[in-house]
């Protein structure tokens, strides 16, 4: 039915099967859209946020998708600037994942603000002292860069590529992509960082505040570093999921091993910096404000030391070690464990830096505030996931996303790739 659109030589499932899959996920999208419309038309009273939890599930989701979407800028930086050529075999997919993550982040922000029609005020009345202003500018610009990076892949669709203009445009865009990759890396450095800065500059919140360099708190650098470290984990995880669902090998092992190795060293070095930051904060920063570290992890029914241990050791040190050691990195099961732990770790870090900050009482006579999101919040948070699944399914079906797919799925695949 749609065979004329499918990349030449690629095998795809029958259209009805594809359509049924899209319809199922599409139902989830509709559920999310319904919740989104409720929030827009009835207001944020549809959520369980309150005056203690001005930042809640959505802001966590926003920070989390941007962190895991960091694979796009970091892989682009490695491929186009540092000339790690093997990564050309996964860069398309990294860009698509980044595009999904960043478009989701913008959508979430559009739902999250109380007056969506005034969203442009952040650009028009920009406060240069606010980290959120920096987030808005860099995020929007980087989304434009990701769109530019995505366009050549779209133009490589079998039918679009028959049109000479599109063919040449895609070819020429590939030729100048290094400029956009460099721009993207620059913008990402600042918006990933400024998202960390959002928490680090809150000097009224001893759990969040950090010292830093000039105007940037240490969380600025830690967020950028962690996105570069864990973002590739998410790229590898989604690649693995796509391979499992399609039943095909899509990227050669040497490419996966290389990205996993780079990610491993980034995680390992990041987690050392994170441990140093945590120790300094716990021993110097917080006590200087009258807070013993135990105040942040006791007297409540949820936030205990377990969350700190899970984030730093189980989902930081362990995946870092598993990915830097050749034997464990090249073991498919252990590698999968490592990248799953890594993705959980960075998401947990963002959770802590959004929701735990809001939960902790600062005034001595205040109390902990715990929060459970409403179904509308859950539905609108699931919405980007469902949208992402659909976009990946459509792009995989109709675009030459994986350059090695044809080679890996010929009658006799190379032994090394098994």
């Amino acid at each position, binding site marked *: 039915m749609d065979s004329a659109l499918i990349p030449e030589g690629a095998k795809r499932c029958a259209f009805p099967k594809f359509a049924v899959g899209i319809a199922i996920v599409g139902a989830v999208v509709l559920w999310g859209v319904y919740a989104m419309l409720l929030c827009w038309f009835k*207001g*944020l*009273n549809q959520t369980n*946020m*309150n*005056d*203690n*939890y*001005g*930042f809640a599930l959505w802001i966590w989701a926003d920070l989390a998708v941007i962190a895991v979407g960091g694979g796009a800028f970091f892989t682009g930086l490695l491929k186009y600037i540092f000339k790690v050529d093997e990564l050309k075999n996964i860069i398309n997919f990294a860009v698509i994942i980044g595009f999904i993550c960043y478009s989701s982040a913008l959508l979430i922000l559009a739902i*999250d*603000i*109380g*007056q*969506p029609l*005034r*969203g442009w*005020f*952040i650009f*028009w*009345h*920009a*406060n240069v*002292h*606010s*980290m*959120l*202003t920096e987030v*808005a500018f860099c995020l929007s610009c980087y989304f434009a860069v990701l769109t530019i990076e995505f366009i050549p892949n779209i133009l490589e669709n079998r039918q679009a590529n028959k049109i000479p203009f599109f063919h040449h445009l895609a070819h020429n865009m590939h030729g100048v992509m290094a400029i956009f990759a460099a721009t993207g890396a620059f913008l990402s450095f600042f918006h990933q960082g400024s998202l960390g800065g*959002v928490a680090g*500059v*809150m*000097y*009224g*919140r*001893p759990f969040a505040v950090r010292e830093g360099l000039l105007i940037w708190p240490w969380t600025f650098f830690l967020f950028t570093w962690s996105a570069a470290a864990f973002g590739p984990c998410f790229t590898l995880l989604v690649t693995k999921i796509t391979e499992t669902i399609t039943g095909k090998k899509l990227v050669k092992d040497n490419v996966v091993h290389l990205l996993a190795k780079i990610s491993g060293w980034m995680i390992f070095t990041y987690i050392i910096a994170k441990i140093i930051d945590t120790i300094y904060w716990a021993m110097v920063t917080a*006590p*200087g*404000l*009258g*807070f*013993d570290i135990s*105040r942040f992890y006791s007297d409540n029914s949820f936030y205990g030391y377990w969350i700190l241990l899970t984030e730093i050791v189980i989902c930081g040190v362990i995946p870092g070690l598993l990915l830097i050691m050749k034997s464990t990195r090249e073991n498919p099961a252990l590698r999968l464990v490592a990248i799953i732990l890594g993705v959980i770790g960075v998401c947990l870090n963002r959770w802590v830096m959004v929701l735990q*900050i*809001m939960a902790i009482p*600062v*005034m*001595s*006579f*205040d109390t902990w*505030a715990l929060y459970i999101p409403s179904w509308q919040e859950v539905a609108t948070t699931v919405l980007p996931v469902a949208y992402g699944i659909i976009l990946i399914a459509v792009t995989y079906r109709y675009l030459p996303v994986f350059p090695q797919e044809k080679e890996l799925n010929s009658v006799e695949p190379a032994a090394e790739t098994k």
Partner: protein
Amino acid sequence: MNKIENKAHKFGMVIDLDKCTGCGSCMVSCMSENNVPFKEDESNKKDSITWMRVYKLTNGKSFPDTEIVYLPRPCQHCGGKGDHGHSPCVSVCPATATDYGYDTGIVSQIYTRCFGCRYCMGACPYHARYFNWWDPKWPEGMEKYLSPDVSPRMRGVVEKCSFCFHRYQAAKDKAYYDGRDDIEEDEYQTACTTACPSGAIVFGDLNNPAHRVHEIVKPDPHPWPNNPNVVGKSRNPNVFRLLERLGTNPKVYYLSEREWVRKAGDNYLDGEWDKIKNHHGSESHG
């Protein structure tokens, strides 16, 4: 007028917690004066708006040693680290919808510019900022009794105590009409101050030595030697500010002769309070 001119005001208040009975008059007068909306069901206090909120504190001891104190908490109108005007909320607002008045020391909220990101609420450790989760709904006929001097707020924006800024504007208008350069102390008083039956709230210009608030607080204009971010620390041993160690530099001070009450104003490590409790401003101005 800007911060370098000597005539700049620094409006603030001191609340005598030993006089406060917790009657709630300040809360009621504030809501009435400022057209603060309310819900049909106010049982969930975490999403209801109370610019002035009265907290109940206890010394944690059992009978007969139990003591309680009521602590009214308006917006603290923080001057920020070093008192440079970078309040926790002002510095984070991405759209400049909340601003610091260097001529008054008042932190304003521009409702028509706020787009409801709520970053300011997260940055404020006092919970002094409130979000309009709903559009305001007044009981039938009540809209006729709203104050014409204060604009009601719409759904989706943040609001907070303004130190009854409209009263300051009215006082300035009157002074201008009378041909005077400045306003008198009693010409600008907040609604909560005038409503308090026990006279627990004193409001005025912290920069004016003739004002009662200055006489009680005796603010130290120099940075506190223990923490250079803290400016304006009281030289009155019974006066304190909430979370002073964070360097937010509030312009709301509290007065109590009871040590446990003063200690409750901030956070201290074990044994730290005894070392720090007798530090009242820089030595040279003690």
